[in-house]
């Protein structure tokens, strides 16, 4: 296990170095009009992060993202456990979920805006619909793949349905559910940011969009960097946790 996480670390570091070198090379080719060098971007991002303006937008985005994630996890797990427990229900609904998963959800955004209005609720809704389906799909498969023996043992012990979920199905299916949560996490983040980009007056997505409008290259680069670093870090951490869960089971 330790050796494995060590190699993840080494690979990630190599990757970061390669990306930085490519970035610097691209900067030399393209020049100041569209890019900043890594060093300039880090300097600007550092300065920008200490402004109150940033804190305000960050708080707004975190709130929207947190709510969306909470909803996506709650709804996704509910759907997943309900459908996973019943062969018939999952036969009926799983293909529909897969079809929904495959559609470009970005086209639904205007509908959400009309339904929820501008502001927080439509952002949260957009983030939620991005994250909820993968969580549900992974949970369905996870619950369905729980070993029959475990379920039979539970029945023999006379567990109530709630105990059955809490003590047997959930722990057994946890690694796979967690894989769904990891994907749901990234997609919810992207959904929330996209929501902020298209129709919002606050948040990091809005900030990015207005920087695009004003052609503020410093700000575009700094925000892209911050978002990428945050999303990347979260994803690597969740991946490492997930591998540990798989290794344990």
């Amino acid at each position, binding site marked *: 296990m330790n050796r494995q996480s060590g190699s993840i670390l080494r*690979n990630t570091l190599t990757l970061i170095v390669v990306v930085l070198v490519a970035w610097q090379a691209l900067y030399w080719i393209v020049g100041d009009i569209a890019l900043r060098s890594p060093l300039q971007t880090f300097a600007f991002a550092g300065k920008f992060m200490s402004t109150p303006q940033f804190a305000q937008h960050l708080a707004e985005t975190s709130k929207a993202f947190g709510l969306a994630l909470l909803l996506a996890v709650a709804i996704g797990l509910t759907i997943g456990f309900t459908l996973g427990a019943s062969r018939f229900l999952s036969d009926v609904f799983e293909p*529909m979920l897969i079809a929904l998963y495959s559609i470009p959800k*970005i086209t639904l955004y205007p509908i959400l805006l009309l339904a929820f209005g501008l502001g927080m609720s439509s952002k949260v809704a957009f983030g939620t619909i991005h994250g909820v389906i993968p969580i549900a799909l992974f949970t369905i498969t996870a619950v369905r793949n729980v070993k029959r023996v475990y379920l039979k043992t539970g029945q023999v012990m006379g567990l109530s349905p709630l105990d059955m979920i809490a003590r047997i199905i959930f722990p057994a299916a946890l690694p796979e559910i967690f894989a769904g949560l990891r994907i749901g996490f990234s*997609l919810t983040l992207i959904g929330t940011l996209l929501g902020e980009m298209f129709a919002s007056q606050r948040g990091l997505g809005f900030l990015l969009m207005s920087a695009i409008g004003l052609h503020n290259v410093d700000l575009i680069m700094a925000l*892209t960097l911050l978002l990428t670093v945050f999303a990347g870090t*979260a994803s690597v951490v969740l991946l490492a946790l997930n591998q540990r869960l798989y290794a344990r089971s």
Partner: protein
Amino acid sequence: MRSPLLWRLLVLAGFIGLLEALCLGGVIKPLTMQPPHKIVTDLVKMLSSGSLNGAIAKTLGNALIAFIIAMILGVTSAIIIHRLRRVRDTLEPLFATYYAIPVFAFYPLLIILLGLGDAPQIFIGAMLGIVAVIVNTLNGLDRVPNVLLKTARVNQMGPVETALRVTLPCASPYILTGAKLAVAYSLIGIIGAEFIMSSGGMGYEISFAYNNFDNATMYPLILLILVVSITINMAIARWEKALMAKRGLR
């Protein structure tokens, strides 16, 4: 009797019926959403009048180009990466985090680099799709039985011939899984980019219609995109299933 397909259709019909009832009953305001039957008639009218055919052709054409680029580059680079263990290990964290990165943040950069034409949109669409193709192709290549590779060697096939005649056909169901994702991602890339900044295409028309409360244009366009993407997806899924069944895998 208890056929899942029948039930699925019933659920779908019930959902559409409910929407219809809510819209006609005035619970959902016409300004929010029009009744489903009106969306369909609007779509037929729109398609037969041809007023937006240019935009539709532009978006679907660009998505097709992005999809083809993602498939060709994705499969080729997967074959190359598959042979280079060290490169693959290094790229693994990138693949794992790639879809967590908001790619649209790079759109302004691409506009400056490639100009405000179709190129940056196609680039975004292809960029979104390519990693899904690479990951799934690698997954498929991992599962090519060693016997087949040995047979290829016995028959003295070159690397290109081996790829075309042995490994790729063998990995094709997994490549199709990647293709399904690439279809969705190229559409997402193109339409999202058109939403943010562009001068034409379905995404642009949808946001234009939204800004003008023109639901008679917006809903049919959205419906069209949904129908197109679901149809392509189901067609590929069916093909994938047939391939899998032929090998007795599912």
